[in-house]
């Protein structure tokens, strides 16, 4: 029985080091379900309250969400999807061709760790909901370390289920997300509508007035900075920077028949982010400032609300663990993906034991997007600009080099410059993605010109010498 299961798992081919074949491509509906599920997540129960706490005004919130999410969709559809459907490779294999094995290995370790922490925070959010109906003592969001045996047992249970689904591959994740997405979205809507009378909203006409005075009243909670239209816009745009500008979704969109499927992210942004962030803001106001995901959902929608928080955490953690598994697998290609994903799931579950991961989620999401963004810029430039300059795309693969110094310097220098802008110019981390992308793009062009010239010259001399 054990051997049979191992054989079955070994036979799951996710095309980690080859283009996805034509017969394995997926239709638009797969991506609509995937994006809607992935972005109607447990994090929305944390992000929505953040806007309330930071005192964003209602007009700034609605306009900022509209503009920011439109920019995010365009980033998926115009930057990421066209490359994904042309190369049909995972992010990691594509990067290996450009940057070389050594550099990608380092990048992948950092990347996989970040994915583990992100998925871990989702497991923690899910666990805050699981304990409510069973009266298990759960830590508050201010707690840094595990607070009870019940909490630890709950986290391990949730982590085990998520890891098993991720081991079974993209097909299983897609199926799981497809089933959950329509129901979850309706729970967000229902929970918000049900608490509106508590806030004094008794008709659609009274919503805007109450929204401006009792929900997003423009006054930050003491100790929190004031958020404006620009904060909301850039937050909405760059909340998934690692996935679109950072090209993380090459691994998912390589299954798309057409690049236009990148617009499927609309479901994630507008049904997921916009609707869920607004709904969770309403829930926080109705719960008199309580921000813990499980309790606010339970108060408004009962056990179904708690189940929703749990499932919302799952549908984000699943593809994140899947991506982390791919990242590690590209370092050790001879080890089967399911074994790697099992290890990733274990690390993720251990990380989820620490509630601090949820408390620091926003800082972490910003940092994780910023760290991965320069490599997305490198892929974009390598694909579109480098050939037009008479330079070689996929340089490391072409010259069989394990290390592309131009890419390495671009990555590190961009992050250092962004850190400088953050620490010394006082630019908040969510605003750094835009200048950071242009810094990375410019650096990679200039350094490639210098590096490729330097490396190819001795090669050419060698060829011409041997030809004599």
């Amino acid at each position: 029985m054990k051997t049979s299961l191992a054989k079955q798992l070994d036979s799951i081919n996710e095309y980690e080091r080859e283009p996805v074949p034509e017969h394995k491509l997926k239709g638009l509906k797969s991506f609509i379900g995937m994006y809607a599920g992935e972005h109607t997540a447990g994090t929305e129960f944390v992000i929505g309250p953040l806007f309330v706490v930071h005192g964003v005004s209602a007009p700034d919130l609605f306009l900022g969400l509209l503009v920011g999410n439109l920019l995010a969709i365009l980033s998926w559809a115009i930057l990421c999807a066209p490359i994904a459907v042309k190369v049909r490779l995972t992010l990691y294999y594509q990067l290996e061709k450009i940057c070389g094995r050594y550099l990608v290995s380092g990048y992948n370790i950092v990347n996989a760790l970040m994915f583990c922490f992100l998925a871990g925070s989702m497991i923690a959010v899910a666990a805050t909901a699981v304990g409510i109906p069973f009266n298990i003592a759960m830590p508050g969001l201010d707690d840094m370390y595990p607070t009870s045996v019940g909490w630890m047992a709950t986290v391990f249970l949730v982590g085990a289920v998520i890891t098993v689904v991720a081991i079974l591959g993209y097909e299983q994740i897609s199926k799981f997300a497809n089933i959950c997405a329509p129901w979850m979205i309706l729970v967000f809507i229902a929970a918000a509508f049900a608490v509106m009378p508590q806030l004094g909203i008794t008709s659609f006409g009274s919503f805007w007035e109450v929204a401006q005075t009792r929900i997003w009243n423009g006054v930050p909670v003491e100790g929190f900075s004031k958020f404006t239209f620009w904060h909301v816009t850039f937050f909405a745009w760059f909340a998934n920077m690692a996935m679109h500008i950072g090209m993380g979704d090459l691994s998912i969109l390589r299954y798309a028949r057409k690049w236009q499927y990148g617009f499927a992210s609309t479901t994630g942004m507008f049904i997921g982010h916009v609707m869920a962030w607004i709904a969770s803001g309403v829930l926080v106001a109705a719960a008199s400032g309580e921000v813990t995901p499980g309790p606010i959902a339970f108060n408004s929608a009962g056990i179904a609300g708690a189940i929703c928080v749990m499932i919302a955490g799952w549908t984000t953690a699943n593809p994140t663990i899947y991506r982390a598994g791919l990242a590690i697998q590209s370092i050790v290609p001879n080890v089967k993906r399911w074994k790697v994903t099992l290890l990733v799931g274990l690390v993720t579950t251990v990380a989820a034991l620490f509630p601090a991961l949820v408390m620091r989620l926003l800082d972490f999401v910003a940092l994780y997007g910023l760290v991965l963004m320069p490599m997305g810029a490198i892929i974009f430039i390598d694909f579109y600009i480098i050939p037009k300059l008479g330079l070689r795309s996929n340089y490391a693969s072409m010259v069989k080099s394990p290390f592309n110094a131009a890419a390495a310097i671009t990555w590190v220098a961009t992050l250092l410059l962004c850190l400088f802008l953050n620490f010394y110019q006082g630019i908040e981390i969510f605003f750094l993605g835009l200048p950071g992308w242009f810094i990375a793009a410019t650096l990679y062009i200039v350094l490639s010109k210098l590096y490729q010239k330097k490396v190819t010259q001795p090669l050419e001399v060698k060829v011409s010498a041997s030809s004599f």
Partner: protein
Amino acid sequence: MQVILKIISYIGLALTVVPSFLVFSGTIEPELHKTLMLAGALSWFLTAPFWMNKQKQAKASIE
């Protein structure tokens, strides 16, 4: 059989969202809405897996 399962699934979705509108309009109490939402969740998750993905598989094999 699939038609019956689909009908139960859609009833589940309706039970999830419609009661909240009734709370909003002051027709029912929040506690009843929570109970109906749970019934809706059970209806959805006990029936949707049997037709949602099977329908996709059938479509994929035709393609």
